[in-house]
């Protein structure tokens, strides 16, 4: 019974965060809203309840100011859940992120920002989400700049560990018709090129890999009739 209650409580966390976003009067995507969120939920516990992803994840990790449309979160409940505070139907998202909860609980970065403990996805997860989550045919300039900011702040790059982690992530997040092992090797190779200061050539390769993933995702969306729900930009 106690276990059941704990599960119910965990699974209602995303709902409680959604309710918080509905009532919080700070501007969508703002720093005030983000800190209010952390103060309301995260400050009451020592272990992460959610990871801050998206552009805020990159800003907090790199300590470089970026523009923000929304606050993206990975909620660490029984089934990990992705949600943001956007209100426009085409921009807002909420749903299961098909990653192992133990993986997310073991692989995060903790930062202390203005006395608050803030938990962020690690570099490899943020890179993968940037390459997968942009559904334009070409990786948009804004995402490219965020990716560069992320890579410029990448610490403790471990080629072998990163390749395994990226392979795990791609295997879970992209269509099976793509070879996640080869793709992760290509991403690692692009990262190494970037860290050798051949940044433009590395970014070109990452744009190519994004395009490859995007093409395969579009095919899956069309096959499942998902494109009828939301139009994908052809830019």
């Amino acid at each position, binding site marked *: 019974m106690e276990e059941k209650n704990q599960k119910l409580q965990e699974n209602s966390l995303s709902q409680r965060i959604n309710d918080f976003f509905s009532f919080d009067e700070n501007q969508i995507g703002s720093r005030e809203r983000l800190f209010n969120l952390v103060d309301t939920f995260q400050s009451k516990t020592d272990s992460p309840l959610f990871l801050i992803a998206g552009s805020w994840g990159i800003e907090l990790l790199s300590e470089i100011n970026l523009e923000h449309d929304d606050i993206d979160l990975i909620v660490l409940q029984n*089934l990990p859940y992705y949600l943001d505070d956007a209100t426009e139907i085409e921009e807002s*998202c909420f749903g*299961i992120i098909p990653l192992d909860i133990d993986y997310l609980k073991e692989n995060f970065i903790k930062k202390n920002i203005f006395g608050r403990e803030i938990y962020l996805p690690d570099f490899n997860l943020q890179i993968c989400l940037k390459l997968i989550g942009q559904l334009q045919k070409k990786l948009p300039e804004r995402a490219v700049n965020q990716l560069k900011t992320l890579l410029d702040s990448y*610490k403790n790059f471990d080629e072998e560990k990163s390749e395994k982690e990226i392979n795990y992530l791609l295997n879970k997040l992209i269509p099976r018709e793509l070879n996640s092992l080869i793709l992760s090797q290509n991403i690692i190779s692009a990262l190494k090129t970037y860290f050798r200061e051949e940044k433009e050539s590395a970014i070109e390769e990452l744009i190519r890999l994004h395009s490859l993933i995007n093409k395969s995702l579009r095919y899956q969306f069309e096959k499942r009739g998902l494109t009828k729900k939301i139009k994908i930009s052809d830019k």
Partner: protein
Amino acid sequence: MPGILMSYWEEKFQEEKQEVEDGRKKSETPRKQFISKDK
């Protein structure tokens, strides 16, 4: 993150869960191999 991608992930998650339940796929993941050093 666009909602269309979330719909796709939901389906992918359900498919994989079904495969694990049917015994067609092992549920273990190799995640232990890459515990973060960045905490």
